[in-house]
């Protein structure tokens, strides 16, 4: 169902999820404005070693999500996305490695939010999130990059009204599972 040229890529959707056995998998999906896939990049699983856990301490999560996985994935994109959506605060750290807004999707209702682990955006930087709302879309930026609000709004305005920013993450998980299956 894909069509249109690659330069039409606008959205990067980046997520990291944890596999009990293998560790962390990262996936970056680039979509055109109609939600069709242009590129997909995924990492081999990564497990922080003990030294990393100790020496990075509280900044480990943002290091892994930002520099270790996110930056490696973005480096493979044939063209940088004009914005990136992420699912967790830790992944906002990828903003350090791209000159485009990075926003976390905030679900309308998060009944499971209390069960989720808390993340620090980046121990080395100012903590906190900057919440933004564009129509029915609720997002959050790293406070340090609150100025991204305007360019982000401009990018989101180009999307169809019903473009569901949360939906592509399910595709990424499905794709990584498919890749895992094929690797067995």
């Amino acid at each position: 169902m894909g069509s249109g040229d690659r330069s039409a890529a606008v959205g990067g959707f980046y997520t990291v999820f944890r596999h009990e056995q293998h560790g962390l998998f990262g996936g970056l999906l680039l979509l055109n404005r109609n939600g069709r896939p242009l590129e997909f990049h995924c990492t081999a699983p990564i497990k922080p070693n003990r030294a990393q856990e100790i020496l990075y301490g509280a900044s480990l999560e943002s290091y892994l999500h930002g520099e270790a996985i996110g930056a490696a994935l973005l480096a493979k994109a044939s063209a940088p996305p004009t914005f990136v959506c992420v699912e967790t605060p830790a992944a906002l750290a990828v903003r350090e490695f791209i000159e485009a807004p990075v926003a976390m999707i905030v679900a309308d209702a998060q009944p499971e939010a209390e069960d989720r682990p808390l993340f620090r955006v980046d121990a080395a930087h100012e903590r906190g999130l900057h919440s933004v709302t564009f129509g029915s879309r609720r997002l959050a930026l790293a406070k340090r990059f609150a100025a991204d609000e305007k360019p982000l709004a401009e990018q989101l305005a180009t999307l169809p009204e019903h473009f569901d920013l949360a939906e592509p993450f399910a595709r990424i998980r499905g794709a990584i599972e498919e890749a895992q299956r094929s690797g067995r």
Partner: protein
Amino acid sequence: MSGHEMSGRDESAGDATLFLRATQELSANGQVDVRVNSLDVGLGGVTAESIAVESWKPGIASVPIRGDRLKVRSFYFPQTGGWREKFAAAQGAKSASPAGDAKSPASADEASPKSAAPKTATRIAPPRDVVKLEDRLYYVLQPPLESVFTGGALEFPFTPFPYQFEGIAFLYPRFAAVLADEMGLGKTMQAITTIRLLLHAGEIRNVLLVCPKPLVTNWQREFQTWAGELPLTIIEGDQAKRRWQWHQSESPVKIANYEVVVRDRDIIDDDGLKFDLAVLDESQRIKNRSGTTSEVVRSIRRTRSWALTGTPVENSADDLVGIFEFLQPGYLTPGMKPRRMGTLAADYIIRRTKDKVLTDLPPKMFRDVEIELTAAQRETYRIAEEEGVLRLTDMGPGLTIQHVFELVMRLKQVCNFDPLTGESAKLERLEADLEEVVAGGRKALVFSQWVETLEQIGERLGHLNPLYYHGQIPSPKRDPILKRFKEDKNCPVLLMSYGAGAVGLNLQFAGYVFLYDRWWNPAVEDQAINRAHRIGAAGPVTVTRFVAADTIEQRIDQVLREKRELFDTMFSDVEPSSARSGLTHDEIFGLFKLRSPQGPIKFAA
């Protein structure tokens, strides 16, 4: 970067307790240089060898933190132009949008807001025979089908049912597929929508759709409804015109009936025509593998092959072999056990039944009405059967199944009308029932296998202004008849032959179906019934099946029941204990308690 001092117990290390005095610096190459002043316990995960501690002077230990470069797999998906781009290129500047298509939707990548957000998310799952990971991911990463409908990229007249989304998701990635939904579930719409999506995605460029002749206008109408922007070419007319139409490249979809395809086999073969997708509607037409129709459609050069049928198996499991010879030659073989065949074919076939997916579809109620023949009919029947059986018996080794069929037909006709007196017990009952139907303001379909029978019924029911729809009515006159039946309150009865009225017609405004006589296989009867019992039916559909008591009709009814069991064996998880693999020649001869004088005789419905 300036270093900072680490000292004492690191609580964040969890169960590892670490006592050290050190300074760390992040170096430009990404390593942490740890200058160890004193080390009391080994660093968890770091071996003693990796930290060279010199006790007699401050030591320097370099702990690799980042490890190897993270391996990334990348997939880049082809972005081909859709049908519209090709069409536009062919047309030049004049075709910014297809001519005469006022309500043409925007191109697939030109979105506009649309109605309510989807409630379900139907994803395309790659079939088993797609092996390359890149190809599989291409499908896995597609957006849910519902987003195509609500996203405004393409316009659709109605939102499909969830099971229809599943059907589209099934067809989309498949190069060989059978859409075998029960009649009335919208196979046509599912096929058209999938074709439309594939065309707009640029995955296919030209499509050949083959269907029975009476259904050509139906397909044309459905394409206008579900894919109004796609120009169609209907292959028809004299040979020169057809040759031009076959080569016509400006419309991505060609529709031809089976007879035309057979007639034009030389054009298709010799001119090297090739299609990205060939779709066979009512694909049971090619169940006979040795038939000319089967041979010709199998020779069509194509990349993808789909078969649409509500009855993948009509008489025996080998019917499915015939269809697969078109899809995947050699994959199924004659004589395979039905259960094995069903298992092998599972990834290629999708079949849903109304009771499973349309729980809100009005119910379909059956009335099996046993008719006692009139005295005159009974006498005529008795003589005909006794004389007929005697004649068959006397034929000895010359007896063939055709002779048996002839007798069956003759007896069935007597069950309908007594040829001597014109009496008909069935007609008396039918007339009474129809009076009631019409009095209630409802409409009814009456099916028979003989045009003559329909005419006899029509004469008697003249006061109800019955309309006729059968094979002897020229195609151009058929649509107006259906229109009149739908719109004219004074025409509440449509008399139809199984052959002409069993497939593809949407008559869901009729609440009653009468089967005046029984067809040879239940699939055809189901097709007839489902003209009325389909999506859009406003109320329950009542099906009345007439069976003359103590006649050949009752014996045939028993055979039909057994065929249904065969179907269940192949397409359900529960194997009925008495499942049969089809009719044997002994069973056919058994209709008259005859013994077969020769070897197996192929049964042809």
